[in-house]
Structure formats: C-alpha cells, structure tokens
C-alpha cells in the first residue's frame, strides 16, 4: 500500500552543512499491518514518520526519494491534492496529544472541522460519527462537548486516536503516542489501539523508543539507527533472532519482568554526529563485533533468513570480495 524508496531528509542549517536525519531509507507498509519503528532519540524515526506523511516543512528540510501511497508519489502532488489526501488516507497521532488540540475549540468542533474540510455531511451525522469514534476508544461520547483542557492526558490521547480514525484512513502514523503517559494508561491505550487495528484493518506505523512495547503490539519491527534502517523483521522472531549488533544491544536494555534473574546492559557511547556524511557503518564505534571494513564501507540492508539486516557480519561474501 505504501512504499518508501530511497528517502533522504536533511535539515537545512545556516552554517551550510545540513543534518541528514534520514539517510536512504527503503521499506514498504502492506495493508492491514502493525509496523513498529524503534530507535533511540535523534535517530530520525520521527523525521521519517513525518517525511512519509509529507508533513516536513520544505523551508527547513531537503527531501529526496519517493513515498508512494496507492500508486501516487506524495512528493509530486500539488498542494491541494496533498491537502485532500491528508487524513483521508494518512493520519497522525502526536506524542502525548497534550497540545494536539486547539485550546479554544470544543472537541466536537475540532472533529467537525476535519470532516468539513474533506466532505459535505449534515451536522447530525457528523455528531453520530464522533460519538461512535469516542465509544470505540472507550470514552464517554459526552466528552465531545468538553474543551481540551477539561480532559486528562490519557483521555486526550484516546481522543487524538479517535480523531485520527475519523475519515477511515489507510495508514495511521503514531509518533510516540504513549510516551507522556504512565504505564497503566499506556497499556490500556495500546491494547485498545491494537484491537481497533484488528477490527478496522487500517495499517499502523508505530514510532517508539520502547522496544519492549513495540514487540508486544507490532507484527513487524524496524530498528533504526542514525537515519538508517538496520534491521527489519517480524516481531515474533526478532527477540530470538536479532542479528544486528544494535538490535541485540537494544534487547539487552530490555528485560522480561517474569524472568528470575534479570541483567541489564546499556550501550556504551553515543550516536554519531549526522552533520555531513557518515563513513562506514554508523554503529561501528559502539559495536562489540566491529571489523576493519565497518569503518570504510556502509553496509546495505540485505535479505537474511527471517527479514532484512544491514551489517557486514552477515555479508561474508562482500567482505572477501573487497
């Protein structure tokens, strides 16, 4: 349904050397899938999410590559075409949802604004739709008459999810949707989300820094590091069959709360500076399996047994050819 081809996003900077936050990313999101995108802060995962949604400001970013949604390249559409496509095919839920609502308009009004921008419906049918959505996210439909400041953080985030579904989108991009919430609320929202996804069969791109959380809800996981996808595997196998040293290290940061002996490991070092280019594998300086070739040649994302991985460890042939 959605295909991303060689997407590059560079943040422009006054000093001339831009920061490339997304560096040549390729992947696809099939219909009815729950895809998790994991990485640490600054790895470009949000930028990638917004890049897919066509929401990056061309004044601040240089974008190249293709994002093809149902056969249309988002970056070749006119402004008006892009406006009508937004939310009808592709919607967004922001982090925490705290400021996602206009503080001076009632919740109902903000749903109605969206529906009005895309279709002509009677007010009563729109109100019915809002009530239906709010019930679907386990909220009392009466809160539609509230102002955003009258709702709690969890309620706002549920409302934001309801709002994202109002036009039956094909893809919902959730950028750290539960990061600002406590674990109990987080859990109930995540369960509700995956339930909705199963019922309504839209696709989800779930962006998070919490690998444990993503492993539980997603059916496929992509791990991102320094603007590149380093591993892409079904969620069911990545736990046991993580190949990229970064994924392994991330899994070392995650513990099973049911295990009797728990050992936690951090990842030493910090991600590389993305100004200008990065030579070789960006993870090489922090990698415990590092080889000489890692510093000179950037590994490509290639097929492996269960998915895709970008690491020289699994490309013996290439190393010998060099």
């Amino acid at each position, binding site marked *: 349904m959605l295909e991303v081809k060689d997407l590059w996003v560079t943040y422009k900077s006054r000093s001339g050397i831009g920061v490339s936050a997304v560096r040549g990313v390729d992947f696809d999101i099939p219909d009815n899938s729950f895809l998790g995108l994991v990485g640490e802060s600054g790895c470009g995962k949000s930028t990638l999410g917004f890049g897919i*949604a066509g*929401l990056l400001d061309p*004044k601040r970013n240089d974008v190249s590559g293709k994002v093809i949604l149902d056969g249309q390249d988002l970056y070749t559409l006119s402004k008006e075409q892009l*406006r*009508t*496509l*937004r*939310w*009808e095919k592709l*919607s*967004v839920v*922001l982090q925490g949802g*705290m*400021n*996602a*609502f*206009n*503080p*001076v*308009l009632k919740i109902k009004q903000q749903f109605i*604004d*969206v529906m009005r*921008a*895309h279709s002509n419906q009677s007010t009563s049918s729109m109100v019915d739709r809002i009530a239906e959505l709010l019930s679907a996210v386990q909220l009392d439909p009466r809160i539609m008459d509230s*102002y955003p*400041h*009258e709702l709690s953080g969890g309620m706002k985030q549920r409302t934001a999810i309801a*709002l994202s579904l109002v036009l039956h989108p094909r893809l919902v991009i959730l950028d750290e949707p539960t990061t600002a919430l406590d674990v109990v609320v987080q859990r109930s929202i995540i369960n509700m989300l995956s339930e909705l996804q199963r019922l309504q069969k839209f696709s989800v791109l779930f962006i998070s820094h919490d690998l444990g959380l993503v492993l539980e809800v997603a059916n496929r996981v992509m791990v991102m590091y320094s603007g590149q996808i380093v591993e892409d595997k079904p969620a069911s196998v990545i736990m046991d069959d993580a190949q990229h040293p970064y994924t392994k290290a991330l899994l070392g940061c995650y513990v099973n709360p049911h295990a009797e002996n728990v050992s936690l490991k951090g990842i030493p070092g910090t991600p590389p500076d993305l100004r200008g280019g990065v030579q070789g594998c960006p993870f090489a300086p922090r990698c415990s399996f590092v080889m000489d070739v890692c510093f000179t040649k950037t590994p490509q994302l290639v097929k492996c047994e269960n998915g895709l991985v970008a690491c020289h460890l699994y490309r013996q042939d290439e190393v010998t050819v060099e």
Partner: protein
Amino acid sequence: MRFILRKLGFLVLTVWVAITLNFIIPRLMPGNPAEAMMAKYAQQGPVPPQQEKALELMLGLPTGSLWQQYWGYVVNIIHGNFGVSYSFFPESVLSVILQAMPWTLTLVGLVTILQFVVGTLLGVYAAWHRGKKFDSIATVLFSFTSAFPYFWIALALIYFLAFIAHWFPISGGYSGSLSPSLNLPFIESVVYHSILPAITIFITGIGGSLLGMRNNMINTLGEDYIFLARAEGLKSKTVAIRYAARNAMLPIVTNFAMSLGLVVGGSLLMETVFAYPGMGYLMSTAISNQDYPLLQTLFLFITISVLLANFAADMVTGILDPRVRKGAAR
C-alpha cells in the same frame, strides 16, 4: 456567571480604591490653593482676613474633619459634582470635561481601533507568510515607525503638510469661522482638521500592533495543534484564522483594552501639538493653570476608564478563551 460576578466585584473594589486615592493624594501635599493665591496677593499689599475667607469659600476649600470631607467628596462624586474649574471659571469641571470628551473619544478612539485592527490583520498576514517579502519589509519598516516619538511625527507632519504645503490646517479641531453644530460644513471641517492628528496616532501605534501580533502568531504557529491541523488537511485559511490567529489574539486583547482605556486621557502630546480641543489638551491647560479640581477629576476619569476597559477585556477574554472562563484548570 460566577466569573462575571467575581470580576464585577473586583471592578467595584478597584474603583473605590481609585476614588479614595484621588481623595488622599492631594491632601498629602502641603498648603492649599487659597494660601498660594494669598501669598501672591500679599506681595502687592496686605490682604484683609475677610477677603481670604471669601476666597476660601469661593474655591470651596474643605472644612470639617477628614471623615466628613471624605464623605462629602464621595457624595459629590456620586452626584456628578466635581467642583468648579479654576481656569474655566465659572464653568463646572464636569461641563468642561464633557465638552472635551467627544473630541478625544471620536478621534483617538476611532483611530486606536482602526490602528489595532489593521495592525493585527497585517501581523497575522506577516506571520503566516513569515520570511516572505511582505514580512521582511513590514518588520523592519514598522520597527522603525514604532520607534518614532509621537510629537516628532506630529511636528514633522505639521511642518511639511500644513506649514509648507498648506494641504491641511495647522491646528485646532474645526475652522474658527464655524460654530459647533451638526451640519455638513462643520462636520467636513472637523474631519479635515482631524486628518493629521489621525495619521500621527495611526503611524505611531500600528507598528506595536503589527509586531505584537506577528510575534504571538509565530509562537502559536509552532504549537502542536497547528502542525496537526495541517496534517488533518484543513484549508490553510482555517488553520491561519481559526487555529492560529484565534489563539494568538488572546494576550493581545488585554493590551488593546488597556490602550482603549487610555484613550479617555487623550493623547496629551498629540493634542497639545495640534491644539486639538480634547482631553489631552484640557489636561495640559489644567496643569499650566494649576487647575487642581479639573486635574483631579481628569485623573479620576482616566483611572476609571482604564479599569472599565480592563473589565471589558476580562469579559472578552472570557468569551474567547474557555480556560479563563472556568477560572480553575491551568
């Protein structure tokens, strides 16, 4: 409703404080006007005590204890009796003020509103098209004009457009050959005389309105709900007005109400330079003639109008911002 009552109570309280301060402050000054006049007369020869008594009675100098004075003062204010003006003797202070008020309210009031509306709209436009040609020019130009001193603009306009070019009258509120009445030649004359003062207020005020709105709007445009509104595919007009400008307006409303409240005081410098028969000119006359009753009443009027304007601002903000109305959640 509770919100309105609370604000109303606060208004009544502050008005009372203003009236009381207006009573106390002059009494803290040493001496009284009669003594001052007496000292002047005494230089020309001795003044008989009856004459001094007569002067005190004529000026209505206070008698009795402070509480009796205060009570009499409050009763007089409620009856609209503010005493007799020294400089326009024997006219009462109230009638002098009521003559000057319409001039200021129409000219300064209308231009302040116009300046605010135009400035704010241009500010919205500049912020929405940030960094484009209009924004770059407007920001620099209006930073420049808002730094102009009021009287300097007034003098420059008089010198070039009135004194040298003779396009506009040099001073006054209407042509001296006409007597104030509601007929066409008089109204024409009033409008003609008000053009230069209006331009002065407009030029010096619009920069602040534009830059204030532009900055607020740019801040608001960085909010998540603006980003989301765009992602929702709302029309850019809806995003700009309903989502961005509507929120950026909120702090501006209070500023605007404050400046409307100050309108009653007139623009002292502008009216003095143009000899425009409004409240500001009246105040400068009162100051130079040591007309205490008039001055005191003018201060009271200005204070009360600022308080009323603030009250109005609170009401309007309450309508525009649900968070203020509920008065609780923050």
